[in-house]
Each structure stands twice: as C-alpha cells, then as structure tokens.
C-alpha cells in the first residue's frame, strides 16, 4: 500500500483545506458536516498526527506533501489502538522545520509578510500614495534577495557580492542592505570582508551627521552586535536579542534581528533557542498578516478563494506560484 493513502480521504481533504487557510466553519461547509462535528474531527486529526494546533497541522501537511521530506511518513491511528508516535516533537512544529530545512522554506508564502520591503511596506506605500517605480522595484528586488539569503543561511551569496565589488556599492546606496550583507559575511566567517562593509557603513554615518541624510544608527548597532556575537561575546548576543524583541519601532528591523539571531544560534548549535527564535518570527509573520487584514489587505486569501472539492492540490500549487511571483 502506498504510504500516502494510509490516511483516510476525509483527513486528507481536511488537511488540504487547512493548508489553504480554511477555518473550521469553511471545512464544515465544504465537507458537509456541522461545525461542531468538524471541530471534533479536527481534534481527532491533530491527535492522530501528533500536533497541537492548526498551524502545526498545516506545516506537517506541507512537509509531507514535499517529496524529499526528511520527516517520517504520516500514520493513521496504529492498528493496535496505541497512540501513534508524533511525527514532529509537540510544541516545536515550526521551529523544528526551520532547523531541518531553513527559515525561508519553512516560512513559505508567509515569508513575504516579514523583512524589509515586504507586504507591510507595500501596503504602507499605498497609504502614502507613492507608486512603485522602476527604481523602487529594483531596490526591493535587491533587498528581498538579501533577506532571502539571510533566511536561507546562504552566506556565500554575500561573499559573491563582495567579490564582485557589488557589496560596497549596495552598502553605499542602502544602509539596510549593507547591514544585511555585513551580517551574512560575519555569520559565514568572512570577517575581513564584513569589517570592510561595516566600516563603509560607519563612514556613511559620519558623513550623514554633517549632511542632510540620517545616520543608519540602528543598522550599525545590529552589525556590531552580530560581529560580537559571532566571536562568542555574550553582550553581542544580548544586544541582538534586545533588537529582536523590542516593541513599537520599525518592525522590519526587528525581524531582521530575529533572522540573524536564529542563524547565530544555529551556528552555535543552540538548537532550542534557535527553534524559539524561528517560532517568534512565524508569530511575527502571522501578526503582520492579521494587521494587514484589518486594513483590508489580504495578499494571500484573495488568490486562495476556495475551489470546488477535489481541486485542492492545484490550488495549493497556484497559491505558491502566486506568492513566488510577487
């Protein structure tokens, strides 16, 4: 028997719908049960696959539908009636996946809610009445690539930019991008290169104090903290932690600090801390999604209008494609 069919069709369908962001009510409507019954079924399903909530169930499902999944295959309730062993350690659903793969893959479409030039920035531009021109598009693409590298832990990307000579230009144009490059270089162990970029950022700060533009103070503080943390200096980690947990200022910078902190913990093999940091980043993405929703912006659910029963897989594929295209 094929592994994928060990699960009954109802559970399969439920997971499919959940992955598209359907609520218990929508599930009930689609599958023809009352909402109460649906909740009971959902509860049973969670127990069967060993997760605590909807988010973990979706991650579990996404993991499983990916072919090269490193996680053990799903099981229906064991024949002898004993509870099945959980596929994912309970309580660490997202963090575990981020460690097994990387933050970028684990976040999936939700990744566009966090980091510089994300959905939040886009919605902000609409409110400001600024149109996205070619220059902004290019700036955004560049930042998002660096953000992606930071999430993926792709330190070589920054090294490549540095060797090209592009890194210095980028840092001069955009302090945030410069900071991301410096962080990546530091994390990848290219400390000489990192110091050069950091120095050029500081140079910009000095000239800014005299001129009109503002000094990228917080970005510089972030770079300093990362280089200290990479040397094993605890005060650096503490500063990074503080930047990642601060409230009420630019959210993208906070998320940047979170991603960096995750990588620092991962390099140091402090897996529990890394897991928690990843979970915090997920929570951040979800909170942003909700904020956008309260402003009438639903970047994901518009594409995710529920298709007729049976078209689930194509919908998920379309959703991913749409998210990637943005």
């Amino acid at each position, binding site marked *: 028997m094929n592994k994928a069919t060990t699960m009954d069709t109802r559970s399969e369908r439920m997971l499919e719908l959940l992955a598209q962001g359907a609520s218990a009510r929508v599930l009930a409507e689609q599958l023809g049960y009352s909402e109460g019954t649906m909740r009971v079924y959902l509860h049973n399903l969670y127990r069967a696959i060993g997760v605590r909530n909807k988010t973990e169930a979706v991650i579990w499902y996404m993991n499983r539908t990916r072919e090269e999944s490193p996680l053990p295959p799903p099981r229906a309730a064991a024949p002898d009636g004993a509870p099945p062993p959980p596929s994912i350690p309970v309580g660490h659903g997202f963090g575990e996946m981020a460690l097994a793969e990387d933050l970028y893959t684990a976040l999936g479409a939700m990744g566009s809610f966090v980091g510089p030039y994300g959905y939040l920035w886009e919605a*902000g531009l*609409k*409110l400001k009445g600024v149109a996205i021109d070619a220059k902004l598009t290019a*700036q955004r693409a560049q930042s998002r690539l660096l953000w992606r590298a930071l999430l993926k832990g792709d330190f070589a990307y920054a090294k490549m930019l540095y060797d090209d000579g592009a890194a210095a230009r980028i840092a001069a144009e955009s302090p945030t991008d410069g900071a991301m490059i410096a962080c990546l270089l530091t994390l990848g162990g290219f400390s000489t290169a990192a110091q050069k970029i950091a120095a050029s950022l500081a140079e910009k700060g000095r000239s800014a104090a005299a001129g009109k533009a*503002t000094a990228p103070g*917080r970005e510089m503080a972030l770079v300093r903290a990362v280089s200290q943390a990479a040397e094993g200096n605890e005060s650096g980690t503490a500063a990074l932690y503080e930047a990642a947990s601060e409230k009420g200022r630019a*959210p993208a910078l906070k998320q940047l600090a979170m991603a960096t902190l995750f990588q620092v913990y991962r390099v140091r093999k402090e897996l529990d801390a890394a897991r928690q940091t990843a979970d915090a980043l997920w929570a951040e993405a979800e909170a942003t999604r909700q*904020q956008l929703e*309260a402003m*009438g912006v639903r970047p994901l659910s518009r594409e995710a209008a529920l298709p007729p029963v049976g078209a689930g897989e194509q919908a998920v594929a379309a959703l991913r494609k749409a998210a990637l295209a943005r």
Partner: protein
Amino acid sequence: MPLAKGVDAADQALEILQSLEGHLAASEPAEVARVLEPVIEHVQSPLDPAEVHAVTEVAVRICRLLHVNGRSREALVLAHALLARGKELEDTLVVKRAASACGLLYADIGDVVSAIEHFVEALRAAKDDRLASSGIWSNIGLAMGVAANYEMASRCYQRALAILEGMPGRPTARHSALSNLAQCQFETGAYEEGLVSAYLALQAESENEDPMNLLRLRRNLVRLLVAVGRVEDAEPFVIEASILAQGLRTPRAAIAATIARAVYDLARGDTDVALTRLDNALATAREVPAALRETLACVARAEEMAGHSERALLRVDEIMDHVYGPAVEAARRHIELASLTDRSRTAVEQQTGQARARLISRLAPRARPDGWSALERLGVAATMRMEPTGWHGKRVGALSKALAMAAGTDPLQSLEIGFACEVHDIGMLSVPEEMLAKRGVSADIERSVIERHVKAGAEILSDDAHPRIFLAREVVRYHHAAWDGNGYPERVAGKRIPFAARACAVADAYDDLICGVHGTAPASMDDALGQLRAQAGRRFDPDLVDRFESMIRAETDDLGLDRAADSGMENFQQLVTALQEDRGFI
C-alpha cells in the same frame, strides 16, 4: 434661626443650580464647586439630628440635578461628605441615600467598582425597606450596564422586580426596572422579550414619573421596534422622545432622544441624516462617560448599515480599547466581582469580537483618500500663518506616527494616524490674522482662537467616508482636549479623548516647545521633554508622555544626536527626517 441654617444653605445652592439649568452642563467646574461649598460645609459641621434629614433631602436633589447634567464628578464631593456624616450619626436613612447617590455618581464617571461598593453599603442600610432595596438593585444593574455586562444587569433588574412583586400602587421603581430590563434585553439580542418588558413598563407608567425615565423607555421602545422590523410603530415614540428631551434640556436627554431618532432614520434609509445626528450625539457623549459606550455602539451599527465598514471598525476598536477595556479591567481587579462577572464578560467580548471579524471580512484594501494632497497643502497653508516654514504639521505627523507605534498601535494604523495629525491645525485658516498676532495677550483671545480653529477644522473635514479623513477630523476636534478635562472642548477627558488626538496633543506641544512656534524661546530636546513631563496627567495622557520620552531617547541615541544642545532645532530636524524616512520598513 441657627437650626435651619444648613437647610437654608442647601436650598440656596439648589436654587442657584436650578437657575443655571440649561447652562449647567457647560459651566466651569470651579463655578459648580463654589456653589456647593457652603452646603458641604454645613453637612460637615455638627447638625441637629432633626435637620439632617431635611439637608439630606435637598443634597440628594442637588446630586441628581448635577448627575443629569453630566456633572457627576463635582457632585461626588457632596455625596461623600453626606455619607461620612450619616455614618458618624449612625443614621441608616442618611447612609442609605448618600451611599446610593455615591454609587450612581461613580457609575456615571465609569468607576464601576466603587459604584457597586457603595450600592452594597446602601443595600445593607436599606435592610427591610423593599422599595429602597428594589431601587438599589436597579442601580446596580445600571452600573453593570456601564461595564457592558448586560446579562448581569438583567439579573439585577429582575431581582428588583421580584422584590416589588405584590406591592400596591404603581411604584416608579417598577417602571424604571422594566425599562432598563428592556434595554439589556435589546443589547443581548432578546428583542421579543425586550418588547414585552418595554410594554409592561409603558403600562406601569404613572403621573409622577421622572421624565428622564420616560424618555429612556421611549428610546428603548424605538430601538426594539426597529430591531423587530416594526418601523412604523416606532414613529410616535420618536416624537414623544424628542418632546421630552426638549423639556429636559440636559445632555443625557439629548443623547437618548438623538439615538432614538437616528435609529428610526436609519431604518427608514436616511443614513446621512442619521449619521450626522449621531456624530453630534457622540460629541456630547464624550462629556458624559456613562453614555459613551452605548452611543459608540449605536454609531458603529449605523456606520455598518451605511456601508462604512472601516469607520465602523474604528468605533468598535474604540469601544474595545478605551471604553469597555478600562471598566472591565477595574472590575477584574476587584476579586469579588471577578468571579461574578467572568461568564457574561466573555459573552459581550465575544459579541464585539464577532462584530470586528464581520467588519474586517468586508473591508476593501485601503488607499490614499481622493484629494488628500489638496488637504495636505491646505494644512501647510494654515500652519504658515503661525510659523514661516509651514512644516509644523509635517513634523507633528512624523512624531505622532512614531509615538503611536511606540504605544503599540499597528504600523499601518500608526501611519494613518501620522497622516491625520499632519493636518491638525487646518482650521487655523479660519482664524483672522490679527487675532493670531494677539496670541498670548489674553486668555480670552487664546480661548476663542482655539475654539474657532478646532470647530472650523472639523467643519472642513466633515462628511467624508474615508477613514483617514474621519480620523483627521477627530484629531482636529480633540487635539486641544486635556487629560484632566480642562482643555477644549472642556470636560472631554481621559480615555474618552480619541487616541489619535491624545497622541497629537503630545507631539504638537513638543514641536511647539522646540521650535518656539508661539514666540517663546526654543527649548532643547531634553528641556522640552521635561516640560511635557510636568504636564503629564494634567494636559497629557501620562502613559503617552512616558512612551514619547522613551521613543525620543531611543531614536536620538540611535542617531547619535545631542538632546541637551541649546539650539536643538537642527538636531530635531534630523530626528524628524529620520522618522519620516522609508528604508523599506513602513
């Protein structure tokens, strides 16, 4: 005759207050306090036991008069003095009346816990007096209603009715309990039951009913009839309500009659008229705390019916954050109440949450309002009348945005607040230049300038469906309201001032201090912070001043700016530029 001096003084005070009728709602707090002073003095001095009851009678009437005019805060002093006197003399009658008065006044200013504490005291003093205890239970229900705990309130009214069961005549307590019960049933969605209670109340009406109670019943009837779709039947009650309100001429009566009228208009499809009416009612309700929640709820419903989901959402959020939240928090801190209120509290919270979810699902993606750049330019033109650059508005906008974010508002909403605050002085366009030049000369002139620019600004921004302009209007209208209620419009105080306006007030004052907009010497950034701090809790929301201070400190530290520099203008300009800058964040 020395014996009757207390009664005389009290009578005199009552007379003065009654002569103020109509202006009482708008008179200065100090003026009211001055009138009450001799009465309080007499209550505190040793009185003849025979005289005490007569004084109590008059004093309670004074309290009631102040209560209906929205002056509960001032009346509390008198009620407390009376209660202390009653306890000293161990006179249960005085204690009962004074404690009930205290409870009613506390409920009115939104302090539900103190209200219930005093009612319980009154209940103890009332012992076997059925009429009195029924009245007190009714009042406890009112306090519960202020905290939006309608299920609990219903139980209180039912208890009040049960006590009256089998009593001869037509006690007024029965009427008011039934009417209030109808209101609770309306709030919890039990319309049919509510109608039954309301018609029973109508039957129980007697000659000597308090007109305010009659008015409340009419309002409840209108809302219930409209809710069940019997719009035509509601019309006579709408008319009766407005006649009653004209006779009463108190803010409370005006709010109740307006709500009845607006509900009727809405049901008939005249949404614009209804919304304008409600807007006025809301402005009045901000001065009468106990009526604010109800008015906000009504406005939210009306906006939703008119298809303005975003604006309805703003109102629902205001109910949750500023009105309902503090009352529930206060109740939760009180252990005895926590166990009582928990179940029904969640019911109401759920209701509000559902309303919120429903509204959110209907929102269209928000964009910049049409004609915003024109408004921005007008804002610059208006500020140019006070300072040469005209950038005051922009700076206040940037500071307000940062402050809102520091206070935990969502980034996008903070952005909207920032934009709304940019045009806060737009009404200055209507103030003659000669008058602006005289600023600081006399308090009267300053007052009229403020009054004028606030009103004119609100007028310029009126009648627009876009939430940003809507928000801007509130900022314009309330950015001179002081935390303690001494600003303009006076007596709008504390959290009843919309959040955006409170944030704007802090940012506005900070910018004025540093840039010396009103001809004062420019202060350093640190000095200006100190001056804000000195006014925290008086002019400004103390919590927001805290947040503002830490925000400014953190930002200037990041930028490496010297806050103590004497001419801080340049550094300040850099700070503002940094706050405005977009580096891919927001």
